[in-house]
């Protein structure tokens, strides 16, 4: 199996940002809770590699700490989607053609029909803004995504003959779903998870832009971008750096997902030996 350039670049970028987040737990160049108004909006320099923001905080440190929030929000939202969506999809696939399947899938369609951002804003309006509610808002829309993907992939596995072999061995639908179906749709789910992960990062940024993401003093990339947007004429780097960070992280995750799909999908592998 050949590891594609996409996969390498994707892993490189994703790991880089994950590492930044990890390092920030023990060390950052500066304390991000320290607001030194006198040092504000400095361009990149030796002291501050990426400059300082409107409160005089070191942008590199902010990016590092912010990575934690952005990644955590997106990742947990993916987790919400997987934990609720995948069993739902597996259930629907196991009950394929039945009323239960129909209800699950129609319910999915219905959630899809709601404008996601509007509902996210409503959720934060009800529960108040914050990282946790951002996770809920993004996570809710991940559920039908995973349910649909899991069901679709599971349906095609259900038609395989080894499922009949398992049934001949006296195994029930639930047993088969977890023993045989789940491992065989894991690739698809993992690839979908990386896509949802990257969408989650973008969604967090979008929510933060309208003031509904992580709350101060907790830095997040989206919040940095939102607060810096008015400074763009004054100190462009303040707005451009977090923007680029988001682009690179999302790009990295997408490349990772794409590369992973190419790597895992035997059909593609045969297509490009």
């Amino acid at each position, binding site marked *: 199996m050949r590891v594609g350039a996409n996969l390498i670049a994707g892993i490189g970028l994703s790991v880089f940002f994950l590492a930044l987040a990890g390092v920030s737990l023990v060390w950052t160049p500066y304390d991000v*809770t*320290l*607001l030194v*108004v*006198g040092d*504000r909006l400095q361009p990149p320099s030796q002291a501050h590699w990426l400059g300082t923001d*409107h*409160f005089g905080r070191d942008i590199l440190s902010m990016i590092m700490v912010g990575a934690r929030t952005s990644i955590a929000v997106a990742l947990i939202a993916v987790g919400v989607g997987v934990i609720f969506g995948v069993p739902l999809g597996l259930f629907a696939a196991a009950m394929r053609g039945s009323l239960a399947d129909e209800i699950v899938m129609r319910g999915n369609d219905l959630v899809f029909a709601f404008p996601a951002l509007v509902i996210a804003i409503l959720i934060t*309006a009800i529960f*108040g*803004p914050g990282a946790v509610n951002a996770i809920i808002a993004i996570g809710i829309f991940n559920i039908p995504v995973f349910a649909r993907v899991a069901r679709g992939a599971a349906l095609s596995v259900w038609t395989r003959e080894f499922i009949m072999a398992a049934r001949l061995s006296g195994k029930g639908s639930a047993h088969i779903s977890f023993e045989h179906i789940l491992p065989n749709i894991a690739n698809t789910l993992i690839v979908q998870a990386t896509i949802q992960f990257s969408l989650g990062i973008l969604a967090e940024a979008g929510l933060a832009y309208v*003031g509904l993401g992580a*709350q*101060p*003093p907790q830095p997040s990339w989206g919040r940095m971008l939102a*607060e810096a*947007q*008015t*400074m*763009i*004429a*004054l100190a462009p780097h303040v707005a451009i750096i977090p923007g680029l960070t988001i682009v690179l992280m999302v790009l990295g995750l997408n490349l990772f997902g794409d590369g992973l799909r190419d790597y895992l999908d035997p059909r593609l592998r045969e297509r490009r030996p």
Partner: protein
Amino acid sequence: MLAALWAIPALAQRTDIVVGLVLEPPHLDPTAGAAAAIDEVGYANIFEGLTRFGPDGAILPALARSWDISEDGLTYTFHLHEGVSFHDGTPFTANDVAFSFTRAMAEDSVNAQKGLFEPIASVEAADDLTAVVTLDYPYGNLPFNLAWGDAVIVSSQTAQTNTTSPVGTGPFRFVRWTQGDSIVIERNPDYWGEPARLERATFRFIDDPSAAFAAMMAEDVDTFPIYPAPETLAILDADPRFVAVIGSTEGETILAMNNRRAPLDNILVRQAITHAIDRQALIEGAMFGYGTPIGTHFAPHHPAYVDLTGLSAYDPDRSRALLEEAGVGPITLALALPPPPTYARRGGELIAAQLRAVGIDTRIVNMEWSQWLEQVFSGKDFDLTVISHTEPMDIEIYGREDYYFGYGAPQFQAIMEELNLSVDPDRRTELLQAAQRDIAENYVNAYLFQLAKTAIQHVDIEGLWANAPTQATDLTAVYWR
């Protein structure tokens, strides 16, 4: 249209203006809502009252030429201008005055400032041009109260529809409202007074600070009377096309504290909080230098202002010592922040950091206005909040026991009572200063700074208010050079 295209630009004097406003009014009836944006569009342009605020905050006659006060101070007789009519052609008479005030005072009134009419017992039209207001008790400040946007005169015919198609007596009349985008008004050719010099004005609503900057730079908007992004004001000012005009407003920005709730019921804790706050850093960090430090709840440009900032000078050591002395142990406080991005959100973040520096664990809770109103303002369920009180001369709120920060000390109420009754200017000044001292010395709230009126406008525009004694965009005297 063709003529306009062929006109030589250098000689053509523009007669229209696009005014940028941050908030869109929910509706346009100033007598039925509190939103500042209603007055920012309509006050002095569409609607007029018996009296009005001048550009410097002075109370000037408007629809009333003059007024007499009876000996006992219980009867005000207003003499009205002749030949005034509403935009729909109905003539304006004293009956309209009676109608407007009676409606605002009524049981089912939805006037947001019903309190302004509280001293009034009745209003009658003596004749078409004479309105007589009878008070329950002597009240010296009535002309001030009647200058508010909430006290403008409306016609009984159109009172119900003023929300969407306002009809007043002002120099401009309403043309069109594109909800979510803009409101257009045009010159009223039948205006009773000096006609406006502009033919047309468009109010465009832009709540996003960076969009506001872009709109100015792209000259989509000619002026922002209250420019929402002080950080880019200097850039615009440096541009030869624009000039920044910094003036004063009636907005006292305070860190309000819940005086009812422990540990904030302890004056030592409140005092400690005020010493923890570095006003200069706050004004610099949140407002990019625009704003005047205040030490009490009073506008610094007012003649009666006393500078009491010394009482709460920045002194973190003192702050820690006071906390120690109060003996309340480690404190955790929630800081509720309403939406305004500069003073509230940015300022709040700085204040939280400053409080944390003296050992007060401060948790920020961002809120929408509706939530802030319900939880903080009505529910009084909060510890700290940052808010700008933009009503003119509103120190009286400290006399209300049930107000959200909950002061209402008896000695303060006594001062207010006397103030309401007295008409002697010197005595009034003395009383106002006593009131300022009382709330500063009792550290009711932490007084931060007076909001500056940060206007940006095209260099060729003349006649806009430099200061904001009330929330208004008076276009009466505006013209292009």
